[in-house]
């Protein structure tokens, strides 16, 4: 067991965890932040993407211990004062989801993209979302939503 100190969605969190605790487990089971989804649990699907120090990361493939001291943003941390983030608004408006399981990871990856590339092309969006798998939408509306959000961010 060890103590980890993290800033999660702007709040300082100190918890005792086992050395082998995955970040995804820590967020969901220890902090009840269940917006971060676990799909494949083998680093492929991207439903568990969160930001660590501003960069997207698959939380099923990192230990709580090895990001000790970092700033984490989860899907719960995107809205401000009850108002959805422009990326969330765009996904809602353009129906960039169907069952919604992959959506938290899609949104977190897409936000990371727009932080680094303000006006991505369709190809750049599709390349970036390489690590996020959606089995419902065929990606058309997801790409459209990311483009829409790019005009608002």
């Amino acid at each position, binding site marked *: 067991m*060890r103590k980890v100190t993290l800033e999660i969605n702007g709040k300082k969190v100190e918890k005792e965890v*086992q*050395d*082998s605790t*995955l970040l995804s487990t820590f967020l969901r089971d220890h902090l009840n932040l269940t917006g971060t989804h676990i799909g494949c*649990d*083998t*680093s*492929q699907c*991207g439903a568990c*993407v969160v930001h660590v120090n501003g*960069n*997207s*990361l*698959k939380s*099923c*493939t*990192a*230990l709580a*211990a*090895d990001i*000790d001291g970092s700033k984490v943003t989860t899907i719960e941390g995107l809205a401000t004062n009850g108002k959805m983030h422009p990326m969330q608004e765009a996904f809602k408006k353009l129906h960039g989801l169907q069952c919604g399981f992959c959506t938290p990871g899609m949104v977190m*990856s897409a936000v*990371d*993209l727009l932080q680094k590339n303000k006006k991505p092309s369709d190809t750049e969006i599709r390349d*970036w979302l*390489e*690590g*996020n798998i959606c089995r419902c939408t065929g990606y058309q509306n997801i790409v459209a939503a990311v483009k829409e959000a790019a005009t608002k961010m």
Partner: protein
Amino acid sequence: MKDFNYHSAKDSKEASKLSSSNSAFLAGGMTTIPSMKLGLASYKDLIDIKNIKKLSGIKVSGKSVTIGATTKHVEVANSKEVKKAIPSLANLAEGIGDPQVRNRGTIGGSVANNDPSADYPSACIALNATIHTSDRKIEASKFFKGMFETALKKGELIEAIEFQIPEKSSYQKHPNPASRYAVVGVYVAKHKKDVNVAVTGAKPCVYNDKDLSKALSNSFSSTSIQNMELDSSDMNSDIHASAEYRASLVVTQAKKAVDAC
């Protein structure tokens, strides 16, 4: 995942000291953590080397580019210095995995793991790299020993990889559409005296294709290798590509690489 003890080392010495016959070094963890979750690997101790500052960073001199072991793929892909000195190396880094892998995965991890389909080992072979470890310097041609096998001894830590700057080079990969690992990847580098054609994905271990290298050393043009047929008897064969297809892909990717130089 089986339980283990996590340690964060402050320098290479401490990292080597903490290692045992039942430990692994942890950098990005992009292979180590999934392997442990799947039960393919288990360790008593994981020794995190991410916080060793000396192991991260990029240095360019007149003849070489030296990249610290814990430098992330995204840092190599975006490095202005790498793009200027060896653009093909930045391109290679940009094509690894997905953005989350590139945000976290490291060059040292990729080289130490020596996955048969990994990208970086081909760069090491093509660019006559020297692997700097906590104990010694190893030439790339003597480093990659076989499938997931390297010359590293237990507790020996990669500190940096030094690549020779070639006259021209290009890396061309036929990626698996799902994982972006190389079904076949060919790294062609033209040095002053000779040409290296490093191939990943085709065999159990990265290798320098002597026939292609020789032909291109004689005449550096894709027509000089156009009709070459490679022996596929020791090439990988799986649901993604047969050995014969891989043999053909090696020549195709090599031609593309030469044309892109």
